[in-house]
């Protein structure tokens, strides 16, 4: 049996930063990742990372913008800590080797982002995530650690009140393994693939959140799902907010710059939830364009000129040209909102600790919460690094004081036995089919606008899909890179999380941030200024609520 002091699951920015922190604390560290660390979805982040480094800017303004952006559901103590760490974090990444874009004076270049009082977003062209991922992987490469590459997380073993280790699946060799661990950091990213239209990678299937939930962790605020306003039509590939930060504008089919009606002051740079709802409303009310891939609006960059577009928005130029056959220098980009980010996740404190002793979480898989009901652009990359480091440090400290852990053969069998049944069934449910139906259900019933009847119907359908999942069947019999099997596992994870989203959204009878109920259009601070906590029960998720932490900022109506 394999054995490590700290095991980090997921190797995007949060996981890598956690592993580095645990190494810096002198612990024996292993990373388990279902894809090579440099292929992590962190690398797809385009726009930038926030830090109030400008002379006219301040940490307090960053805090305020984040609190307001969260629609007052973010925990203000966490947000204060988060924003104070921003500067040092960005500087550290620069020192690690990240190649950022620069201003003529040699300082880090900054651009404007939605919901921010000042140009605060530090960037590397429009591939900031990739630049950070490279810089961090290069720095981590100096350290000694074990990488279990292309291994899937199957189960977290929690016994005697603390974590004992995990059961994993080696995709390449098709075998199950146990890894004893004194502490575990879950940094497995989001579950965007629950939705059909998503900017997320195919691998964003919420494995860590689902596995933690199965092991008894509280999952927090899952009903808050961010839709990015500008995803490329058809493929839903992200067109960065940086495109609007650089001066891109949105127009409907009548040629109107419609954001003048929704956010007269900041227009296209209003918070993401505001812009997404505006686009959906325009299309729903007949002012959008229409085509074989549905309704859409135009994102125009042409007026910025070829040079600016091709230098600062190089990747999205390529995306538009390769994936939509559109040249943004000459023509508008067809866009429509798509699922982009999950504010919710495994509930943690500022140090990344969950309710399970020895289990920590960070990044998009976790919910501290700093994004509350809506995340600001440029805050997610920062979150991965700030709280990745915290979780890694805390996990290292915990491991240093923890006695040896013990796994049993039964722990592995508990995973392997049912999976073997999936492969030996003569007939049963097809993972791809269940996934498609789940995605359609989420799109239709848990999208940008929600109401009681839809949520009720959607929950019913997801539960029906979960019942069908009991008869899941894997037809591929190969031992090598059996995607049919991992697909089935991932669909199981996503269905579990889909149910939590519906239950939480159904219960929350208000509109706040990304959670927009047409039947409850107002924010209801008296009743709902609190976090949803979901715990696994025999009949499905059991909800409870915890208060939001306040320090200095009183809730106000959010106007842009």
């Amino acid at each position: 049996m394999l054995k490590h002091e700290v095991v980090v699951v997921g190797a995007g920015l949060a996981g890598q930063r956690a592993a580095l922190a645990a190494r810096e604390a002198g612990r024996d560290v292993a990373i388990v990742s279902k894809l090579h660390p440099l292929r992590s979805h962190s690398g797809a982040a385009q726009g930038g990372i926030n830090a109030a480094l400008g002379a006219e800017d301040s940490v307090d303004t960053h805090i305020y913008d984040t609190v307001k952006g969260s629609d007052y559901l973010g925990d203000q103590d966490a947000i204060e800590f988060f924003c104070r760490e921003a500067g040092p974090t960005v500087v550290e990444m620069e020192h690690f080797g990240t190649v950022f874009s620069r201003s003529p004076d040699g300082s880090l270049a900054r651009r404007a982002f939605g919901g921010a009082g000042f140009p605060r977003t530090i960037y590397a062209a429009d591939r900031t995530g990739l630049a950070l991922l490279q810089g961090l992987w290069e720095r981590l490469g100096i350290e000694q650690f074990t990488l279990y590459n292309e291994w899937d997380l199957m189960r977290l073993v929690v016994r005697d009140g603390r974590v004992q280790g995990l059961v994993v699946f080696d995709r390449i060799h098709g075998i199950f393994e146990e890894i004893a661990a004194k502490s575990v950091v879950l940094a497995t990213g989001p579950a965007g693939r629950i939705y059909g239209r998503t900017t997320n990678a195919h691998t964003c299937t919420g494995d860590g959140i689902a596995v933690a939930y199965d092991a008894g962790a509280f999952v927090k605020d899952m009903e808050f799902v961010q839709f990015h306003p500008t995803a490329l039509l058809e493929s839903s590939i992200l067109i960065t907010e940086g495109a609007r930060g650089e001066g891109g504008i949105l127009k409907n089919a009548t040629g109107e710059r419609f954001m003048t009606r929704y956010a007269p002051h900041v227009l296209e740079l209003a918070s993401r939830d505001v812009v997404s709802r505006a686009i959906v409303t325009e299309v729903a009310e007949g002012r959008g364009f229409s085509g074989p891939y549905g309704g859409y609006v135009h994102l125009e960059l042409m007026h910025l000129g070829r040079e600016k577009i091709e230098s600062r928005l190089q990747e999205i130029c390529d995306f538009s040209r390769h994936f939509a056959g559109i040249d943004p220098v000459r023509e508008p980009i067809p866009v429509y909102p798509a699922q982009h980010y999950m504010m919710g996740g495994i509930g943690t404190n500022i140090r990344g600790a969950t309710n399970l002793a020895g289990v920590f979480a960070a990044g998009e898989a976790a919910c501290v919460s700093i994004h509350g009901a809506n995340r600001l652009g440029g805050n997610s990359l920062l979150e991965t690094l700030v709280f990745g480091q915290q979780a890694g440090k805390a996990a290292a400290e915990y491991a240093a004081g923890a006695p040896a852990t013990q796994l049993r053969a039964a722990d592995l069998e508990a995973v392997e036995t049912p999976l073997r049944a999936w492969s030996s069934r003569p007939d049963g449910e097809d993972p791809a089919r269940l996934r498609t139906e789940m995605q359609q259900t989420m799109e239709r019933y848990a999208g940008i606008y929600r109401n009681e009847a839809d949520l009720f119907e959607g929950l019913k359908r997801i539960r029906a899909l979960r019942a069908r999942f009991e008869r899941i069947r894997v037809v591929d019999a190969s031992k090598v890179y059996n995607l049919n099997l991992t697909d089935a596992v991932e669909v199981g994870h996503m269905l579990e999380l889909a149910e939590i989203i519906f239950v939480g959204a159904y219960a929350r009878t208000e509109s706040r941030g990304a959670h927009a109920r047409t039947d409850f259009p107002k924010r209801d601070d008296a009743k709902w200024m609190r976090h949803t906590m979901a715990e696994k029960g025999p009949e499905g998720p059991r909800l409870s609520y915890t208060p939001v932490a306040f320090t200095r900022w009183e809730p106000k109506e959010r106007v842009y």
Partner: protein
Amino acid sequence: MPADAISAKFDVRRWDAVAGGAPRYQRYELELAPHTPILSALLRIRDEVDPSLTLRYSCRSAICGSCAMQINSKSRLACETQVGPEMDRHGRIVVEPMRNQPVLRDLVVDQSPFWTQYDRIEPHLKLDPAHPMPEGRPTSMTPEQVERFKETPRCIACAACYSACPAVEADAAFPGPMALAKLYRFVVDPRDHATQDRLVRIQPNGLWLCLRCHLCTEACPKDVRPSERIRDLKEMAIAVQGGTERGSRHAIGFKENIEDRGLLSEAKLVRQTYGAAGMIGQLPQGLRIWRKKPEVLHKPRRIEGADELDRIYEALDRESEGAP
């Protein structure tokens, strides 16, 4: 389905390292819009036709580097390659795993040779204790200094270049285009203090095995242009170390060879590269060629205006001496 849908034919190479046996090509046919990415088509095959087809993929937007494979013999990202042009040109789409890495199954290869070469160039900043990073603030770097990285920070390590490289195919010692482009990224980084050492150490079984065939530059989905950065590294390596390797001696020798008369003297070049003693080893082959082509031993004529060439050399030697 859009009105312009075409009937796309895929011949996908299937093989399983555990099951063994001979590889086979499986035909799949789908009705698709011409702009459909080949990755989308393969995923549709997986979802609707054959769940046992296996491949690596993740972001579907050419940023994670997972889905490099051979498409009609070209090393490409499947997510960024469209069905229409391939069907137009070839009448079918042959999909095979990348080259130069052992196949595990179907389109999935063992990438360890690629990562081993990546590690060889020590891909991390090397600092000089005498020049620590500035305390609490970022290093100052001008946009011009960032320009020197060229497009190398765009590399997504997809290994398409490694798959396309005939030097890798013929000689496992060669680091391959990606590792060398990555090396360039560190060599030009003003924060790195190991430039000279890096340039010295990458020469044996390294830089000079590049064939400058530019197949990597064709394959690269991010316009990193590895072959051109390898050229840059060669020039820098000569500047640092002169002609200590056969490759650098050959390049310098060639440059000096033609300065003389304006045209190449073939026999002299052999001497310049191998040295007088090393030439003995070349004798048998030289004789074979000489028997059919006695001109190999000729001294070429001196071109008209050879003095102009001299002066160009002088001007650019002066310039390079004056360079930092």
